[in-house]
């Protein structure tokens, strides 16, 4: 088999990405969230979302032949296997059953003649044998008869990989952050198995945030940033620092937007103090966070996905089970009660815009005023001599119109349903909803996710302006470091549910990068120790 070559030219999310991978080699793919890793893999794997959004540019070659997959099934046919972050396993089935899922070994019986191949009987013995072979190839300790629902998470991962191995055609295996959910020992076993697979001639694309792992096992390392390959490394000739800086390090002029005025800002007294906060938010667990936010500043919270930065805002807002002490403006904020922070003057813009942030089926006006109506009893008027208070339609309309104008929300009227608006305009409505509360402190989570460049600027400017004009404190949570650095005064980086460090926004980006990859430091400490 000649070398697997792939070149590929795109733009916007991905631009002009070229790389090649030889048989039996492991390619490490690293990059920040949103750097384009998933998009790249989706293209490679023929996910329908690529076709739906107008296909891709460039060419992919496997074994020297040009390929273009229209569905994951075609990719599977061609020998591309992928293990996603989310498991694709049937919980009630055993490991063996999952490994051979929809490719079961069957034997003939007479009813097949009448009703077709789906009535073939399962060959349990053969299935078990195949599963054992695959597991042996991986060289892990996994019992084929174990039920997936009773497995520890590492075994689930092994089951998934074993499935790909069992597909005889698999020559290229994509592993998307396989070690993220594993314990140290499990991860070590997995890495060993990967090496073994590579020796068997299967090429692997390995995506991970744990740089040490990448350094340990990959033959080549590619760093993606903003949809471009920024550097290509050979592990022997590099170290963690240079990879980390390549990942996050946008060139220094990234800070040029900051004005003199920004530098002169002085922060007031502490308005929000967070002590020993833990939040049980699935996928974003916060373990032990201590923070102090000063009055009038824009405080940024950054970090890689899944490290818990989103959990902080949601936890304080009472949306997920949490504990610890949160003090706001001298008052202790009761946790686990969404009403409490709202009535104290804390508002939040959720990162899950369509899920939590908006009433998609309701008009714009209603979206904007609802929280203020519930929390502060505004936009109500008395009727029947004060007996009942009902919605004040006129006040609501005026309020909605005010924000539509102020935030340049593009819509037909304030009665238009939110679902019909674009992502950017929906985000503006989320902001309007928070502004309508007149908050003293505003949490904004991922304000620019999924909206176009123009809208991004408007949203960030609005936030900045709101902070300046109303002297309101803003806590902005974002995965995009540069965005944080362009608007915040101080930035905290969260890693593994804890604060890795708090730096002024003017600190060099490599320092942020190192904080984000704090796990790497720890690993290295352990190695040296």
């Amino acid at each position, binding site marked *: 088999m000649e070398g697997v070559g792939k070149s590929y030219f795109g733009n916007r999310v991905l631009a002009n990405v070229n790389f090649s991978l030889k048989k039996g080699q492991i390619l490490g793919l690293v990059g920040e969230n949103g750097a384009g890793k998933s998009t790249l893999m989706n293209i490679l794997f023929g996910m329908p979302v690529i076709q739906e959004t107008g296909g891709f540019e460039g060419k992919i070659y496997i074994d020297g032949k040009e390929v273009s997959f229209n569905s994951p099934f075609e990719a599977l046919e061609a020998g591309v296997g992928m293990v996603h972050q989310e498991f694709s396993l049937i919980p009630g089935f055993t490991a063996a059953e999952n490994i051979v899922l929809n490719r079961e070994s069957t034997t003939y019986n007479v009813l097949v003649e009448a009703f077709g191949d789906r009535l073939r009987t399962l060959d349990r013995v053969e299935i078990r044998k195949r599963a054992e072979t695959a597991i042996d190839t991986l060289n892990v300790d996994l019992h084929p008869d174990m039920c997936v629902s009773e497995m520890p998470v590492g075994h689930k991962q092994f089951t998934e990989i074993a499935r790909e191995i069992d597909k005889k055609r698999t020559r290229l295996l994509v592993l998307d952050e396989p070690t993220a959910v594993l314990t140290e020992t499990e991860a070590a076993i997995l890495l060993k198995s990967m090496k073994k697979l590579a020796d068997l001639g299967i090429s692997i694309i390995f995506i991970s945030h744990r740089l040490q792992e990448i350094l340990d096992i990959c033959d080549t390392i590619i760093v993606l940033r903003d949809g471009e390959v920024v550097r290509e490394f050979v592990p022997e000739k590099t170290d963690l620092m240079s990879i980390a800086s390549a990942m996050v390090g946008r060139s220094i002029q990234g800070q040029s937007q900051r004005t003199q005025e920004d530098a002169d800002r002085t922060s007031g007294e502490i308005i929000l103090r967070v002590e020993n906060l833990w939040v049980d938010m699935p996928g974003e667990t916060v373990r032990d966070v201590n923070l102090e936010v000063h009055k009038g500043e824009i405080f940024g919270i950054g970090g890689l996905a899944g490290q818990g930065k989103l959990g902080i805002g949601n936890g304080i*807002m009472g*949306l997920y089970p949490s504990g610890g002490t949160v003090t706001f403006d001298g008052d202790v904020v009761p946790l686990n009660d*969404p*009403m409490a922070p*709202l*009535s104290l003057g804390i508002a*939040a813009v*959720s990162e*899950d815009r369509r*899920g*939590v*942030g*908006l*009433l*998609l*089926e*309701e008009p714009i006006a209603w979206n904007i005023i*609802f*929280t203020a*109506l*519930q*929390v502060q*009893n505004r936009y*109500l008027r008395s*009727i029947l001599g004060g007996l*009942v*208070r*009902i*919605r004040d339609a006129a006040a609501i309309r005026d309020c909605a119109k005010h924000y539509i104008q102020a935030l340049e929300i593009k819509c037909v009227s304030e009665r238009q349903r939110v679902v019909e608006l674009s992502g950017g305009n929906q985000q503006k409505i989320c902001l309007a909803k928070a502004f309508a509360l007149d908050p003293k402190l505003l949490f904004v989570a991922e304000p620019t996710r999924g909206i176009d460049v123009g809208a991004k600027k408007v949203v960030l400017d609005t936030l900045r302006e709101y902070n300046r004009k109303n002297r309101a404190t803003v806590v902005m949570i974002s995965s995009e470091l540069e965005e944080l650095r362009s608007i915040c005064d101080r930035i905290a980086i969260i890693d593994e549910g804890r604060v890795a460090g708090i730096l002024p926004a003017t600190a060099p980006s490599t320092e942020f990068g190192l904080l984000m990859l704090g796990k790497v430091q720890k690993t290295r400490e352990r190695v040296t120790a």
Partner: protein
Amino acid sequence: MGRIKSFIEAAGWPRIIIALFLLGLFVIAPFVEVRVDASISDTLVRFGMNGVMVLAMVPMVQAGCGLNFGLPLGIIAGLLGAVTSVELELTGILGVLAAMCIAIPIAVLFGWAYGLLLNRVKGGEMMIATYVGFSSVAFMCIMWLLLPYKSPSMVWGYAGTGLRTTISVDGYWIRAISDFLSFQYGKYFYFPTGMFLFFALLCFLMWLFMRTKIGTAMTTVGSNPDYARASGVNVDRMRTISVILSTVLGAVGIIVYEQSFGFIQLYMGPFTMAFPAVAAILIGGASVNKATILNVVIGTILFQGILTMTPSVINSIVQTDMSEVVRIVVSNGMILYALTRVVKVKSR
């Protein structure tokens, strides 16, 4: 053309067909010697009788609890009120009011318990509601036999205990609400003004309620529970309130129904009463998670219109009673249509 098309799309084919069908029935009626005025009067009376029970669907639909197939629970509360009122020998408007006053606290209690139950089974409300309704009716069958009611006009003559299947309210409070300001026009046309005023009053109160802080919160819970929670609304409490409200309206609704109908139907009487109410509000344009008072009014008129007109008109044409079949097909077909509409699945 485009406007017609979009109108059809908005209203949905089944509703258009049903409306045209009803219109057709009214057009044909004079030709087959069915009196239109009598038919209209019948339709109106039945509209008034059933309207409140259809209105009872609104709060639960709005709060995202789905169609209230558990309406029999409210109806049972209403029946208890009605039976007690007769036992106390109360007559006229006083009797009806007493029935309601007794029924409402019971309905609140039932609704509260029912609401607690539904909060534990989010996502499976409709099927469970159906069977909770069914089993509560069956349970009450036992209770009707055992409850110590004594009034000779209600218990079985020979045994002296156990309530009868059908109890006449003639002599107590038959048409106590209906006859308020009602008038007769000609031989066939009767207009139950009181019942309409009462229905309008309830509609107005509902309209008002939906505009209060709680009502707004309830609608929001139905629209997006996560949004509501993030805005400081207690989702479970809103759902419970909606269920209580629905149950209370069911109780009031059955009393209105009985005073016009003239009989209290016990035992298996309330068993299937949820279905016409559900069908009516769906025909009126509601979906599984959105309903307005306009839906209630339109739906009840259309549905009851069909129920009134099919027996008389179709029977005159084909000399066969097909009303039963038409009723089953129309009402269940409508519910089926609503259930298979794609509704966005909310992430939890």
